[in-house]
């Protein structure tokens, strides 16, 4: 239990650092674009496109981290009414279902990337797959977080049964 939590906290720190760094890059780029336009009558061609792609990664990765931390927006008032062992069971079912939908995304993303990944973006001419792999990466991380929490919940169940 301790070890699983530790691994997760370590992953959180690295991923949150990554996401924050991307956000910082987006922020700096936004400001530079405005300064260039009005200060120097110039533009970075493709600047907006680059911001967009970095932003996609912040969502894909950030959402996975939020799963671990339980920070997603949800309707919990019904769940809160249940007693402990049942609530644990529902939590496990939920994590399994979330892992399932993310696995579905990963499964179908391969065919999609193979078919449309070679297209280039209109301005930067970056191949699409560089953006598209954010889906299997984000969903893959989400699955790992879910599995970890299923393990943690199962141990919780056992320890509460012993009490």
């Amino acid at each position, binding site marked *: 239990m301790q070890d699983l939590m530790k691994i997760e906290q370590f992953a959180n720190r690295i991923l949150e650092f990554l996401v924050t760094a991307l956000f910082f890059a987006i922020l700096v780029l936004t400001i530079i674009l405005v300064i260039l*336009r009005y200060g120097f*009558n*110039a*533009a970075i*061609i493709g600047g*907006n*496109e680059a911001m967009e792609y970095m932003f996609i990664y912040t969502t894909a990765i950030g959402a996975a981290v939020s799963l671990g931390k339980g920070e997603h927006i949800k309707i919990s008032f019904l769940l809160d009414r249940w007693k402990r062992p049942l609530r644990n069971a529902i939590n496990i079912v939920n994590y399994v279902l979330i892992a399932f939908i993310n696995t579905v995304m990963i499964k179908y993303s391969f*065919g*999609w990337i193979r*078919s*449309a990944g070679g*297209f*280039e973006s*209109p*301005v930067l*001419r970056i191949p699409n797959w560089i953006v598209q792999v954010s889906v299997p990466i984000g969903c893959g991380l989400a699955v790992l977080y879910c599995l970890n929490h299923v393990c943690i919940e199962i141990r919780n169940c056992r320890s509460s049964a012993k009490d």
Partner: protein
Amino acid sequence: DQYLFKYANTQSENHPRSKSMVFFKNTLEKASQGKIKVELYFSGVLGKEAEVLDMVKMGTVQGCRGGLFERANKKYLMYTLPFMFEDADTVVAVMRSDLGKRINKGAMANGFYIPATGVAGGMRNITCSKRPVRTVADLKGLKMRTPPIDVTIRTFKALGANPQQVAYTETYMALKTGVVDGQENPFSNAVDMKFYEAQKYLSVVNWQVHPDPLYVNPAWYNRLPNDLKAVFDAVAEATMIYSDTIWLNSEQNYFNTLKEKLEVNHCDPSARKDFVKGVKSVWQYYVDEGYFTWDEINEALTIAAKQ
């Protein structure tokens, strides 16, 4: 009714592109005696152009029309070379020539069956608040709103203008407040978006036109029996001819509206030669990048010259 053709584009139902697809639906359903059923989705309800194009490739929907033609065949970009064609009719002639058909066929390699190509509206022209654009020198230093399209940005940079990216929906205010001096679009867009309220000059330089291929999912097409394939191809060709006709006619009406609102100038032949000279580097760039060859450009120019 075992063959269902789901089609999508981003324009609303009153747009010439959508109207021509209603013609497509009616004609095809009748000609196939109800064996092919067509479902039309307009106004981008199924996604943006790039997304719907992916769907056609994957077979989620069976057909679409829109930009991003390079994804089907890089050679389509040749139609969009700056100052290559003098008017829309010459482009149409090239599209319907053997060269045009070869380009359509070439799309198969990238997973699209393209039975016919038309033009996406009339020639694109420049409006401006500062001065009429008669010569290359007039463009120098003008802040031009351009869509995020590689050719367009390269062209206006090559001609000494300063291309700026502003979202289409915010262009009106950007023109009005002088954030940008001018924009380039077919007449229809300039009227629909009321750009004329914020502009003074319309310069008919006919600098570019966009092709409008009908993208079809090849697997779906190949499942059709031969007689239905022939019916489908014939209706597709007739639809693109119909589309060109109504779209270009509507452009003429929009031009008449603009004539009342803006000071209009046309580009004289010697000035046009200078423009062509000014953008040759752009043509060369795409040849160097392997999009098409000078032979193909010259073939297209020869067909155009016969018009």
